[in-house]
């Protein structure tokens, strides 16, 4: 199972901050993962938005990046604290 984390507006879209998901074997990279999740969550493109970056195991990656079914995968809208 992969740990999927939803930050910022994506936690509103999904109604949760994180979940464990069984990623289908056919999904092997981040670009495919975005498309799959956007459909699964009826997210209307929220997962496809280029301003949303992905981090795998706490490192930001550039699409398309390989995903494994045991990764921690975070969806990160534009950051900003303070």
């Amino acid at each position: 199972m992969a740990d999927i984390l939803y930050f910022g507006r994506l936690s509103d879209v999904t109604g949760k901050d994180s979940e464990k998901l069984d990623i289908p074997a056919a999904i092997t990279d981040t670009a495919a993962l975005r498309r799959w999740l956007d459909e699964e969550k009826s997210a209307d493109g929220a997962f496809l938005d280029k301003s949303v970056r992905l981090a795998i195991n706490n490192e930001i990656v550039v699409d398309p990046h390989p995903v494994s079914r045991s990764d921690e995968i975070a969806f990160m809208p534009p950051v900003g604290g303070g």
Partner: protein
Amino acid sequence: MITITPHPFNAAEALEAFQKEARGAGAIVTFTGLVRDTASDGDVTGLHLQAYSPMTERGVEKAIAEARKRWPVTALRIIHRTGDMAPFDPIVFVAAASAHRRAAFEAADFLMDYLKTEAVFWKKELTPTGGRWIEPRAEDYSDSARWSQTDTEKA
């Protein structure tokens, strides 16, 4: 030193402690960011803040290392809240100490620009009608760009 915490903190106590840590410095600059009770479009009932450990901490550590490289600061301190806050609660405290004031002002300013535009946090303003994720303003990005312009000019 960095603290990223879901627990409330007190800015005055933070300054008191920092002054001890920075003993011998001639100049201390602090920034305190607080939850406002109004936004451009109405009342604010609170703020919700997410971080992503340890990516958040790692980024802030790097910003502190960069500030130390750029200015002769003798001490630096960052406290940043996560979780749920009420209006008037402190969100962030940044302190910089140096022999003279310019370095302390610039290091604190630089660290705040980092925290506003690059630090790994997500911030939601809660309002009577729900809430709204706050992403950096154009002004925040241009403030932040000041520091890389300086690099180019110096290069």
